[in-house]
């Protein structure tokens, strides 16, 4: 039982979204959640840093968002993949790209592992 997460993270490559992680990532996830609104997507697209600052994100969070480092945001930042995926609605990244990055693969490498590589990638 991990003291930090209050949950056994025993499944390799898996970071269970516990309450502790949710608490840690609350600002980050709130920023991403906000992108479900069209006017917020526009504001983020226009001036990413200014928009992220309205959510009080840390320098580390802003950097990882700009670098599209979903792996770090999930593993260290308490990001929920269900919220982070909304960032892609602005940056153009699909779920498969975010997945490939988390696996340490290129999108092409990842797609080659799939039964049927679908066009719709969320």
């Amino acid at each position, binding site marked *: 039982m991990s003291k930090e997460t209050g949950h056994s993270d025993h*499944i390799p490559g898996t970071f269970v979204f516990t309450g502790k992680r949710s608490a840690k990532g609350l600002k980050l*996830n709130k920023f991403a*959640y906000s992108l*479900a609104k069209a006017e917020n997507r526009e504001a983020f697209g226009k001036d990413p840093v200014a928009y992220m600052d309205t959510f009080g994100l840390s320098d580390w969070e802003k950097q990882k968002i700009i670098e599209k480092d979903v792996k770090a945001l999930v593993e260290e930042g308490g990001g929920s993949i269900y919220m982070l995926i*909304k960032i892609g609605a602005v940056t153009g990244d699909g779920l498969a790209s975010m997945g490939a990055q988390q696996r340490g693969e290129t999108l092409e490498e990842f797609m080659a592992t*799939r039964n049927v590589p*679908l066009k719709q990638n969320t």
Partner: protein
Amino acid sequence: MGKIVAGVGSSHVPSIGSAFDQKAQESPEWKPLFDGYKPAKAWLKEKEVTHAIVIYNDHGTDFFFDKCPTFAMGAAEEYPIGDEGWGIRDLPTVKGDLDFSWHLANSIIGESEFDLTICQEMVMDHGLLVPLPLLFDFEPDWGVKTVPLHVNVLQHPLPTPNRLWQLGQAIRKAVESYPEDARVAVIGTGGLSHQLHGNRFGHMNENWDQEFLDMIEDDPKKLIDIPHDVWMERGGAESVEMIMWLGMRGALTQDVNKVHRSYYMPMLTGMGITVMEDKVASAA
């Protein structure tokens, strides 16, 4: 009198909704999936289903982690289509039934002692909007009245599989005490195997999915005792949402008539559908 007619389990993968909106139903990649829903929709129509209770989860469309209900049920005349980040899908506003919803609330909270959050305003998410138009008419308007029932499967602690099962039983009790006519389909959504985060991203498990489909039909009580960790281990972390199917299955008779089943595992997620007829309904 209220009556449970059917139970449906269905995936709610967002890409199904995108393919649907892009009219990709006949494309080679998508035909196997959409063809699997045709007999389901035809049979539900034949059974003259009037109401759907849809057990699904919101994915950050209406709910956020500021206030995270374990179970949230709608009690509204209408449920608007949500924007999940990619705009609002061109579907008619989901139609509710105030009287039916409040009856369910009175029974499920007041008699069965579930601690529901009751939503008089509730915005719909792909968790519900992916399966609904594959199962019911929606043009020019919905052919069914819907009660959305959201389950927290995102932020741990989650409700136990047993709690979902008990919720299904409470739903049955509530429907059967409804004094008006209602022919109800209970729909459990989510899954099947998939993992969307970590370096285990992309994990799928067809064997487990097929075993799960067998068990949900024939031996659902065996699923109650499987802890969340085991669901996540077998099917991928995000597949734990499959526990929502137990909310549907717990509302049905132990034995059911198996009507239809289909499975397809293209890219990131095992996509399954099963349709079952309630034994009491079939005997009537």
